[in-house]
């Protein structure tokens, strides 16, 4: 077990929120077609409130702190916030679209110890990238931002969300990352909007494309291993396990101070404007409910052959109406990866079949 894994295991044992994503704003200078956010400002936390929350997060034991948005660079107090965070010695990661990063900005980020920046890039072709962000010229500006960060020795990761609009371009983005000295990560997940609106799901890639992605050794490494069918029977260690780190060692704070188990799990669990962070973390009934769920408690998934290897997201399941239920998107991933349908897929097929009239065979009367 690596030291980071040991750290996570210890945090789990001690009930420490070792990892927090803190969105500083939902405002954005891009209008990405697949985005799940409402970009209006409904009353963001003030600078003072944010600095106070950072003090509380340090006291709570948070080590990994990710600032995201919206576009974080739109906060005029961003560097004050980052400097305060670094004075607490958090391991700070910044997620941005990179459009506003110039040489001076990159130099300041490096100067305060920001060594990890993730930038959304949708294509190596400007016309495709800009059509997704709906900001003309965004690709050129983002690319320049990446170069400025790399010149300062900052670790840059290009995050490539896959959609129907850019599915044929991920090789190009991967090559662009290599050219710019950046890391590369790919994600085929499109999530419903935070208000439950599912219209953005139209951009999800097709099952056939997902299958192809899962069989690309440049992305997944050993294809045979990655796509191996699951063990037939899950043992107690799997069934006693918890679905993911959301609410266990990780949580999410919105620009309005709302605390959720995860950015993809919009279950309101408290607000730092009304309560101390640690009180929410320790005593929120919602977080305690999430923490109480073990794989054996999952209504459909506990009996699924994929239960030990599925990337099931409880947040996506929650958005489908039941945090203990299956997540359709993850059922699809497990199926496309291994070729074996999940219990959730079989159940919904049975459900569909039972809603259609049964074919009755009538024996001829004798």
């Amino acid at each position: 077990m690596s030291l980071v894994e040991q750290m996570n295991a210890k945090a789990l044992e001690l009930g420490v929120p070792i990892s927090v994503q803190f969105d500083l704003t939902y405002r954005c200078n891009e209008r990405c077609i697949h985005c799940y956010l409402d970009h209006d400002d409904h009353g963001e936390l003030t600078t003072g409130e944010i600095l106070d929350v950072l003090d509380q997060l340090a006291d709570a034991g948070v080590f990994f702190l990710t600032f995201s948005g919206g576009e974080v660079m739109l906060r005029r107090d961003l560097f004050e916030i980052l400097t305060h965070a670094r004075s607490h010695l958090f391991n700070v990661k910044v997620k941005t679209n990179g459009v506003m990063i110039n040489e001076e900005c990159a130099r300041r980020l490096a100067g305060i110890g920001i060594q990890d920046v993730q930038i959304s890039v949708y294509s190596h072709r400007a016309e495709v990238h800009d059509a997704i962000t709906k900001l003309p010229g965004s690709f050129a500006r983002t690319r320049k931002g990446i170069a400025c960060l790399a010149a300062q020795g900052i670790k840059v990761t290009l995050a490539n969300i896959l959609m129907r609009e850019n599915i044929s371009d991920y090789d190009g983005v991967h090559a662009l990352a290599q050219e710019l000295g950046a890391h590369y990560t790919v994600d085929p997940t499109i999530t419903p909007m935070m208000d439950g609106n599912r219209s953005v799901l139209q951009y999800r890639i097709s099952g056939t494309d997902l299958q192809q992605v899962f069989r690309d050794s440049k992305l997944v490494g050993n294809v045979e291993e990655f796509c191996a069918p699951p063990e037939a029977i899950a043992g107690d260690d799997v069934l006693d396990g918890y679905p993911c780190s959301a609410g266990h060692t990780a949580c999410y704070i919105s620009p309005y101070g709302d605390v959720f188990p995860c950015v993809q799990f919009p279950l309101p669990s408290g607000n730092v404007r009304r309560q101390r962070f640690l009180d929410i973390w320790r005593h929120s009934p919602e977080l305690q409910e999430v923490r109480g769920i073990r794989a054996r408690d999952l209504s459909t998934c506990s009996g699924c052959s994929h239960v030990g290897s599925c990337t099931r997201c409880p947040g996506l399941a929650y958005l489908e109406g039941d945090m203990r239920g299956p997540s359709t998107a993850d059922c699809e991933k497990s199926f496309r990866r291994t070729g074996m349908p999940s219990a959730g897929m079989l159940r919904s097929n049975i459900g569909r079949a039972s809603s259609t009239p049964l074919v009755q065979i009538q024996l001829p009367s004798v």
Partner: protein
Amino acid sequence: MSASATKPLYVATSSAIAARMLGGEMMVMSLRDSTFFTLNEVATVIWRSADGSTALSDIVRHSVCGEFDVDFETAQRDAEELVNRLAEHGILTVSDQPIQQPPTHL
């Protein structure tokens, strides 16, 4: 004869690190090379006292020998080995002159 007998060493925590106490141990990550360290109790005392202006020998005498059952010579030798190893990964800065460093809240 150890270096400390002739020339005092000063140690300061680097600004290019992330760190947090977890279950009584100090977890430290070098932002320079992403190496990760767990400091034991004694190493944590030295690391937390590394303010750049207190000589390592004074840290050992007052903070280590004052809190742990260890003789000064042994503790000083181990402390020098530790700080040099952490300095290799950019966790600490070691100098024979006092070191200025930005304040942290840890």
